Each structure stands twice: as structure tokens, then as C-alpha cells.
């Protein structure tokens, strides 16, 4: 088991993760990788509040997550590793090059981002960062919920943007 999903989702822990993926995967733990949340007890309590008691949540900085990855990988329970943005996932994979796939779960509208899917908006810089991950052998797909079809990065970026 270990970490079955490396997900970028700007909502971090929320309904789709806890209920949607959680029930589908029989999720045992969530690794939330965020430098700010990892240093704030209030933020951690906020995200822990909605998680069922049988599910563990680990809060780590990027460096802390890279150090903990081997332990998480050896865990017998299925887990999800979450980052809130592409840059954080990028920095994590720089330190943890064994990661082979990344799920785009929710990157929502912000000024400068163009629509790719209803739950994926990207700036040109973010597109380039995802292409770089792909060039390094990481399979990047977009999929918000388990029942949805995974959309490969090439298909995602081939869609007409709203730019």
C-alpha cells in the first residue's frame, strides 16, 4: 500500500479527498505537505477537524515530507499525499524523485490562470512546470473524483484555453 495518490489540490483536505477518494481507496492516512500549515497548530486543527478518527493526518514541510516518504511508502494502509499548489509538489519531487505520478485534483481560478478543465486553471508558468515533471517521467493526469476519467496532461494542455 503506502501512498497511492500524489495530489495537487488548492483546497487541501476537503470533501472530495476525505469522502470521495477516502471511501473509494479505504484511505488510512493523509500526508499534507505545506510549509505554512506544518508550522501552525491552528491550521492543523482546522484540517484535522473534518477527518474521521480512524484516518491519520500527517503535517509536513516539503523537506519533512521527503524524509518521511520511505516510512509512508512502507505503511500497509493506503494514503494520499496532498500539496496545495504545483510549486510545492515540484519542490517535493525534486527531493523525492521516486514519485512516478501526480494527480491534478483542483487548481481553481486565479488572475492569470486560464481554464483547462472546470477544476483546473493554469498559468503559462504552471503549464511549463507540469511539462517539466512529465519530461522527467512523471505521469501527470487530472481527475477530481475517483469516478471521473483521468485526463492526461497532453490532452489537458491541448484544450482551447480561455486566454
Amino acid at each position, binding site marked *: 500500500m503506502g501512498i497511492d495518490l500524489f495530489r495537487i489540490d*488548492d*483546497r*487541501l*483536505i*476537503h*470533501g472530495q*479527498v*476525505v*469522502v470521495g477518494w477516502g471511501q473509494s481507496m479505504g484511505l488510512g492516512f493523509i500526508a499534507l505537505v505545506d510549509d505554512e500549515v506544518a508550522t501552525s497548530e*491552528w491550521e492543523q486543527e*482546522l*484540517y484535522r*477537524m*473534518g*477527518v474521521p478518527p480512524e484516518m491519520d493526518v500527517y503535517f509536513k514541510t516539503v523537506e519533512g515530507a521527503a524524509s518521511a516518504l520511505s516510512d509512508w511508502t512502507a505503511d500497509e494502509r493506503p494514503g494520499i499525499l496532498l500539496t*496545495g499548489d504545483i510549486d510545492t509538489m515540484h519542490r517535493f519531487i525534486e527531493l523525492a524523485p521516486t514519485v512516478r505520478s501526480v494527480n491534478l485534483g*483542483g*487548481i*481553481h*481560478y*486565479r488572475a492569470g490562470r486560464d481554464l483547462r478543465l*472546470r*477544476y483546473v486553471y493554469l498559468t503559462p508558468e504552471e503549464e511549463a512546470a507540469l511539462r517539466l515533471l512529465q519530461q522527467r517521467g512523471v505521469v501527470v493526469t487530472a481527475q477530481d473524483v475517483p469516478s471521473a476519467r483521468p485526463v492526461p496532461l497532453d490532452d489537458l494542455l491541448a484544450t482551447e484555453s480561455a486566454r
Partner: protein
Amino acid sequence: MSSAGLALVAGHGDYASGLVSAAAEIIGETSAFVTMSNRSLGADEIERLMRELVSSRGIRVIFTDLPAGSCTIAARRVVRSQPDVTLVTGANLAALLHFASHEAGTAYEAASSAAERAKASVLVVGSPDGN
């Protein structure tokens, strides 16, 4: 309208508009509620919209769907900075109906009473062995 003033109902998809629509079927059109959806919004945008509604409409109670939902996360941030706002998670139709007819007390009291009504409205009818 409730003595506690306006309430914001927020959640996934059409949860909020659906609940308020259902409430209107029962008690008639009501101005007690403002609705918002998290559809297509990131965490920052959900919080920004929620703060804007709370501020511009004088909202003192927020009803949300899931305790782990993104609207609940945003609402908890609002409550942290505005202690006069009360959050009720896991809200249902019974909660909204009770809130809309609440005629006395503070926003917190109205929210607490609505939450109790919501809990009491969830029942299991049937037998464990199916007979």
C-alpha cells in the same frame, strides 16, 4: 425572518440553493438565507466570497454541509476573525426551517437551537435483521 437575522448557507454543488428552495416549499419564500456554492472556486476564493457576503449582508450565522468541506474550512477562518459569527456544520432542512422561524435570542442561540433540531431530525427506521 429569524430574530438572528440573515444566515449564509454554503456548500458543495447546489446544496445551498437546493436546501433553501426546499425550505421555501414548506414555509414559503423566505429572505432569511443567502446562498453560495464552492463550485469551481479555490480555497482562497471561497473564503473571499464568504467574507464579502458576511460583511455586506450582516450575516451572523453560517450553515455548511460537511465538517471537512471547503466551505466549512473557510467559515472556520471567518469565525476565527469574527467571533460574533456562528458556524453550524452538517446542516439540513430541519435546521434551516427551525432557524427561519426562530423568534427570540441571539444568533448563537438560534444557531445552537437549529443544530439541535438538525440532529433530532436524523432517524433510522427499520430493523437490524431486515425482518
